[in-house]
């Protein structure tokens, strides 16, 4: 087990280093840097002024040196300066992270609260009308584009309350903020809950075919005891993995939803930074997302071994 952990840990570090190189190179594939863009839009080019700006931003250095500077900065907590606001990138990011974290937390809550029970019901009532309805709902959850769902929700709010749950100013209390965030969280969580529901259903069906379920039934256990005591406990394991992975991947849905609801979180900020080619922000944010995904995956692997004593990681 410990050999496996050490190996797995080093692979994780290796992945992150590879990821940082990929991000760094990809962002520099674009012809033209920020200096070109600034000077192009100004309409005239003074080569000396442009060279001065490039030197100031460190863009004249060879790419490997620039990469070295970025890595060195990352390890010491210096994330560079945003090209657009000219503020330290860390200061730009810090206030936005908690907003996105709250949104992601609420979305995850929604995912588990709806996905898990509905998946169980769908499996227990397999091939009934209820099952078909739930399956169609979960399939449409995977089919509706999250931004369109968000827009439909806005439309309903305008129609019935003549008010949009859009972030216009900072909410006064935490309660207000959570209330405001719950609408976009539901829009994001719908998709993940559909995924969890499908997985719970198929995992439950798989377990319900096992011999020990038949044994439980033959010794006279009630259907409820069988479904919720014997089956669910075993069926929930693969679901835990998916919930963990979804937690990390929610960020994809958040990008869109934060944009539609005008929420000043990191996901919305990433899109803005990409559109403005604000490299220090983009590369640090994408790296942050990669770190979260990789670490969560690692944690889920560990959790799996804790939850299921049958699993032994051996080399």
């Amino acid at each position, binding site marked *: 087990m410990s050999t496996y952990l050490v190996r797995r840990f080093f692979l994780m570090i290796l992945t992150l280093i590879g990821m940082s190189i990929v991000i760094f190179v*990809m962002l520099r594939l674009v012809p033209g840097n920020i200096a070109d863009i600034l000077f192009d839009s100004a309409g005239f080019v003074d080569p000396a002024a442009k060279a001065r700006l490039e030197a100031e931003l460190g863009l004249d250095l060879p790419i490997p040196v620039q990469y070295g500077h970025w890595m060195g900065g990352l390890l010491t907590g210096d994330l560079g300066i945003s090209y657009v606001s000219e503020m330290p990138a860390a200061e730009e990011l810090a206030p936005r992270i908690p907003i996105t974290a709250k949104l992601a937390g609420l979305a995850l809550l929604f995912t588990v609260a709806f996905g898990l029970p509905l998946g169980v019901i769908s499996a227990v009532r397999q091939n009934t009308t209820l099952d078909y309805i739930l399956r169609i709902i979960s399939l449409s959850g*995977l*089919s509706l584009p999250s931004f369109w769902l968000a827009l*439909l929700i806005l439309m309903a709010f305008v129609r019935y309350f003549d008010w949009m749950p859009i972030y216009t100013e900072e909410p006064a209390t935490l309660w207000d903020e959570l209330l405001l965030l719950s609408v976009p969280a539901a829009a994001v969580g719908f998709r993940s809950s559909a995924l969890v529901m499908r997985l719970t259903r198929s995992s439950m069906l798989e377990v319900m075919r096992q011999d020990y379920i038949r044994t439980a039934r033959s010794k006279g256990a009630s259907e409820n005891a069988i479904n919720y005591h014997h089956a669910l406990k075993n069926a929930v394991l693969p679901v835990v993995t998916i919930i963990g992975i979804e937690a990390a991947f929610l960020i994809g849905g958040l990008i869109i939803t934060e944009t539609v609801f005008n929420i000043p979180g990191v996901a919305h900020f990433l899109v803005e930074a990409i559109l403005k080619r604000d490299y220090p922000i983009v590369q640090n944010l994408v790296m942050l997302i990669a770190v979260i995904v990789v670490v969560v995956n690692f944690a889920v692997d560990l959790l799996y071994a804790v939850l299921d004593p049958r699993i032994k990681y051996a080399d």
Partner: protein
Amino acid sequence: MADIDHKAELAKAGAFVEGWWGSVFFFIRRYPLGAAGAGIMIVFVLSAVFANFIAPMDPLQTNAAASLESPDSTYILGADKMGRDSFSRIIYGARVSLIVAVSSTLLGGIIGVFLGLMSGYLLGWFDLITQRLIDIMQALPLLVMALVMAASLGPSIENTIIAISIPLVPHAARVVRSSTLSLREMPFIEAARAGGMSELRIAIRHILPNTLAPLIVLFTAQLGSAILVEASLSFLGLGVPEPHPSWGRMLSESAAEYVRSAPWLVIFPGIAISFAVFGTNLLGDALRDMLDPRQRS
């Protein structure tokens, strides 16, 4: 390998199967939801192919007088801010959507299949390096990866296709590699090698065809997700550029504002995206049930 008499097998399963139409009816009876999905896909493909016959107007033709016109007899689904006919743009949008979805799935699929096949068949250092590359590619959510790719390549239809195809590579590679690993130990591969077949020929003629079933399932699912990612990228302004009629792009033009003033501009393109993706998902589920008995529900 003994030939399987499909007709006899189907008849044994209680199906009345005679000819091509018979199998179509069997599929509809056995997988009603999958058949519905196939029906949606057929409508989608037909409108993409025959867009110029179906669409009543030129999707690029602007008309200042018809700006934000609500649905009426001329503009069935209304007109956008530049007075372009929404219905025609949605029909032509099917073409953009289909081109991006199919080409990105093919591109990503071919690279992924090649990497997976080589990695599972050759093993050794090639496998080691490919596996690490795949780990790296999977460390970012699909949309974030596509977003960074789109940003670094710039907005155009070709670059959107590339941006969407890259995140598919690790999925296809994983699927093919794991089937290849078990296939390469099979006696029929040993027989082919004993018969003097070259390694490359074994990989392509004997291993690849046996990995097709899970690949078809993966590719169908991928079509739906490619349509979604294209719409999302275009919605954010990083996908298919103007003036191409893309469903996602149609929703992006100050959509939050139109929610109040012109809801028809928000509703219809969204319905188009959802239906196309819903169709591929339904069909994908049925194909998975049919081709992958382990996951049968």
